């Protein structure tokens, strides 16, 4: 990937991230923080490659630490986000008289 193309991807991804969040209501701030926390758990694939290519003992140790941490980020981020969002089930079905 050449430098300028990398810059384009960086710019476009930044716009995308910004715009996606721009409309979020206050009640979703925390779940969304947690959800985006999960998304950067993708660092796992990088850590896997780093460990997979590690040769010296030091590299392996750091690689293992990296994979453990990254897997924790991904798995923990998923569970916590899922638990929070689980509570935002659509209430359309059980709308009650007090609703307006």
């Amino acid at each position, binding site marked *: 990937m050449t430098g300028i193309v*990398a810059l384009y991807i*960086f710019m476009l991804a930044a716009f995308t991230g910004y715009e996606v969040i721009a409309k979020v209501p206050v009640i979703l701030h925390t779940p969304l923080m947690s959800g985006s926390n999960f998304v950067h758990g993708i660092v796992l*694939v990088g850590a*896997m490659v780093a460990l997979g290519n590690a040769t010296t003992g030091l*590299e392996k140790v750091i690689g293992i630490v990296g994979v453990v941490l990254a*897997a*924790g980020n991904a798995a923990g981020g998923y569970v916590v986000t899922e638990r929070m969002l689980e509570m935002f089930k659509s209430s359309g079905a059980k709308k009650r*008289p007090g609703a307006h």
Partner: protein
Amino acid sequence: MSAVSGDEARLLLIQASYFLTAFLFIMGLKRMSSPVTARSGIVWAGAGMLVATIFTLLYPGMGNYPLILGAIVVGASFAWVSGKRVAMTNMPQMIALYNGMGGGAAAAIAAVELYRGEALSRTVGTLAVVGGIIGAVSFSGSLIAFGKLQGLIKKSYRFNGQQILNLVILAAALFTGGVVATGYSMDVFHVTGIFALALLLGVTMTLPIGGADMPVVISLYNALTGLAVAFEGFVLGNAAMIIAGTVVGSAGTLLTQLMARAMNRSLGNVLFSGFGDTGGAASGGAGVTGNMKPIEAADVGVMMAFAQKVIVVPGYGMAVAQAQHKVWELCQLLIDRGVLVRFAIHPVAGRMPGHMNVLLAEAGVPYDLIADLDEINAEFETADVALIIGANDVVNPVARNDKSSPIYGMPILNADKAKNVIVIKRGQGAGFSGIENALFYLDNTRMLYGDGQAAVSQLIQAVKAV
């Protein structure tokens, strides 16, 4: 030849899977930003993660598979179990913890690349170093945030010149990083130095910040981890990491600003002043006169049963008492009697943004009964009863008119405008900011003392008895 083309096919497959992952991540975040589709959003993003993880195992020339799989199992199962077990009120610190782990992983990738000692191109070296520093700061900073919210670190350490110290550490980390990135020296000493300094910086940056500001700080570190992941993605030439990291970096930055704004604070203020602990009951009291008038549950029951419109204002106390289920039970009784019930949510009620929404949602309250500050504030005037359950600062009218108050200027819920105000709390305990609440002394206010859950249970009986 077949080996080579096999490798190429694998690489193509991996690239395609990463493309799919990036798409699923963005769609997932999109869905997560609307209440109706939020639940499915995390599933989309989760599918993306799974795809990327599986296809990454196909990378040609990779080894250490037992180590990789073992490490994944260890990390994932620890996080999975702890994430499942944690109480809703402790969510913020768990997010901080997992976020810190991600930052640590990004730093680890940088460390592997740098310790290898192979000459990197100047651009790649710089990206590795900067990403490593950011990741390490996010790692140690998030752990401190975790410790604070978990109650492991009680005090906020603060002294003059703290900001200068932080700047010095940052400068030292960047300088050492520059030495490494320019290829001037890549020895173990310098590389280790970068990470040690960055870890230290995360600690010294976070220690002085008060607990009140922690959600904002966690969100900031979340954005930083995203950035670190994007940088290490450039180093590894990994498009999924670049895109996911950048999206999170940018989305997280905006989210941090939105949160800070909801708390009526600027980001600079959060990082460099430390409001969350200035408190102490000292500053309040001015202009608050009269006395608190108690009331019995039975009377409140009658009042509410014959009201036309009741607005419920939950606060941190409801979370502590885990009273949300009882509250919803009470409200259902009232709704069945034809009372119009709304929940009024202040953006910083509780201890994390959206805290009340999460609890009410947990209890099954339909979110169309829930209104936020802007929507509901005009409605208090037409409400017969404002029922305040464990909320304090967010309904304190001094924020409107007492310039000397530490919460002056924070937008509050106008519960005092309701015809009758009922406040459920255990006693004379102050709110988070530690100041007196003028609302409790108003003529139209009555205090229903007791633990949140117990008091609401009494109200349920009282309404049923009407």
